[in-house]
């Protein structure tokens, strides 16, 4: 048993230690260094045994409004897109549970299928739709609804739409799972007792599906908060999010320590609270 245990555990354990744990610790370490025009482009943390930790990066994060704005944008756009995903996800997941049993696997497959096509292509598709000479504006102009093209791309609207679109399948699945586990008799009972279908949905179905809805919300919020590709392609200079700031510090400014400090900030301010919330809620659900 022990030999088997070591055999099974050693490879994934070693791999995870080297390629997940050590790199994350390196981020923490380098966030306390200073950029340097050298290879590697940052100062060492220890010099002859003396600790040379610099907190300059974190001080700058607090002082410079640029980073606070990026954090605010991340929270705002990821929050709005999460809300959109949950509302649309609930409507679609509920519709799937109401469909005939034989149809449900087909419908779920259809919902997941776009997730398999390239993420980049799906975001790209929206550029073609949203840009000033794009299809949406062409259609609206052609129908005479608007006189001048609407500015849809390079806006917060574009970012929220793109993120909602890309992450929607992830929200539908956990919500569907929690709705499918509910007995339809519960809603029927509420309706027999005088509730309208909408009331029954709001007062019975939603509270029971709470763990699934929360799981869906966190599942989409966390990656959205650190999203880079979508705000970069569909947003503009006013919608810069944390992931983009990190990217710019890293690739354009070659300030690796600052990029690392931003990664630490992103983890501390967005990921850990979200995960703590998940834990709390899961604990409640299992009780």
């Amino acid at each position: 048993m022990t030999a088997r245990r070591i055999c099974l555990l050693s490879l994934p354990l070693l791999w995870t230690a080297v390629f997940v744990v050590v790199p994350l610790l390196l981020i923490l370490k380098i966030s306390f260094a200073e950029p340097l025009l050298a290879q590697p482009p940052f100062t060492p943390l220890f010099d002859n045994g003396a600790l040379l930790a610099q907190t300059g990066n974190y001080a700058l994060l607090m002082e410079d409004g640029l980073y606070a704005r990026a954090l605010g944008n991340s929270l705002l756009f990821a929050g709005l897109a999460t809300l959109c995903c949950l509302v649309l996800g609930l409507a679609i997941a509920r519709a799937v549970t109401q469909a005939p049993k034989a149809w449900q696997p087909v419908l779920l497959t259809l919902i997941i299928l776009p997730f398999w096509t390239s993420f980049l292509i799906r975001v790209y598709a929206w550029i073609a739709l949203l840009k000033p000479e794009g299809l949406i504006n062409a259609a609206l102009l052609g129908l005479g609804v608007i006189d001048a093209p609407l500015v849809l791309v390079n806006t917060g609207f574009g970012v929220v739409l793109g993120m909602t679109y890309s992450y929607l399948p992830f929200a539908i699945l956990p919500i569907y799972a929690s709705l499918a586990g509910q007995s339809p008799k519960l809603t029927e009972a509420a309706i027999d007792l005088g509730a309208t279908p909408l009331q029954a949905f709001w007062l019975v179905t939603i509270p029971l599906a709470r763990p699934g809805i929360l799981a869906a919300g966190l599942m989409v919020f966390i990656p959205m908060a650190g999203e880079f590709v979508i705000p970069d392609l569909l947003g503009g200079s006013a919608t810069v999010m944390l992931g983009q700031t990190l990217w710019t510090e890293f690739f354009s400014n070659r300030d690796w320590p600052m990029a690392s400090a931003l990664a630490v900030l992103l983890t501390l301010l967005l990921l850990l609270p979200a995960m703590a919330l998940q834990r709390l809620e899961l604990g409640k659900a299992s009780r």
Partner: protein
Amino acid sequence: MNTPRMSGLSRLNLAALALGLAFLYLPILLVVVFSFNASKLVTVWGGFSLHWYGVLFSSPAYLEAALHSLQIGAAAATLATLLGTLGALALTRLGRFPGRQVFAGLMLAPMVLPEVILGVATLLLFVSLDIERGLTTVMIAHATFGAAFVLVIVQAKLVSIDPDLEAAARDLGAGPVQAFLLVTVPALLPALVSGWLLAFTLSLDDVVLASFVNGPGATTLPVRVYSAVRLGVSPEINAISTLLIALVSVFVIAASLLYKRTLTARG
């Protein structure tokens, strides 16, 4: 009594489904349609043409990037399947060992963490170890990322396989490795195939990790497409997108057929 209420609800549900699916599919469909557009303008239909596919296949930069992506994808998916499966076996078959929760959390971390963080972290590792960046470093990053997804898929399947089956094979004289290969692996096969395909697709799709850890001469297809997309919409990208969608569709359909056959074969 219930009928009118039900039909009212299902009309609403029907609308939700139709609009939801239209929202998910129409943008992709438009990319495919416009890849066959003769006009250079991406929003004006100028007749059917395969011109842009010709442009694509005569562009060595795209072909080379596609080859890199396929190589990295196949290697990363295989490694991810191995790592994820071993991880899933450790989590389901070893009982409660010390640090089990931490091990599970760390193996799943690449799935949860934003890609920019994983990208910076992995690059810092390679730079600290003074490893030259290239196809291998991208492959390693993709394998780490994919292993988390494989773990979830394989673990879900493993829980439903009775460990007594393997024990029965042992009682009948099979060695531990033989019992595992002849009993558990065939039952796991659909999960292994879906896991491999998912890891392959994720690798074929990734821009962020590859941008951080690739080196000169190791550009992958998404990185190439991404830099082109940043410059604006162009018909070649529609063509390349269509090819990628077709490729992935073939894989997904093959996987689901395979999955169905394994299910029916076992009754």
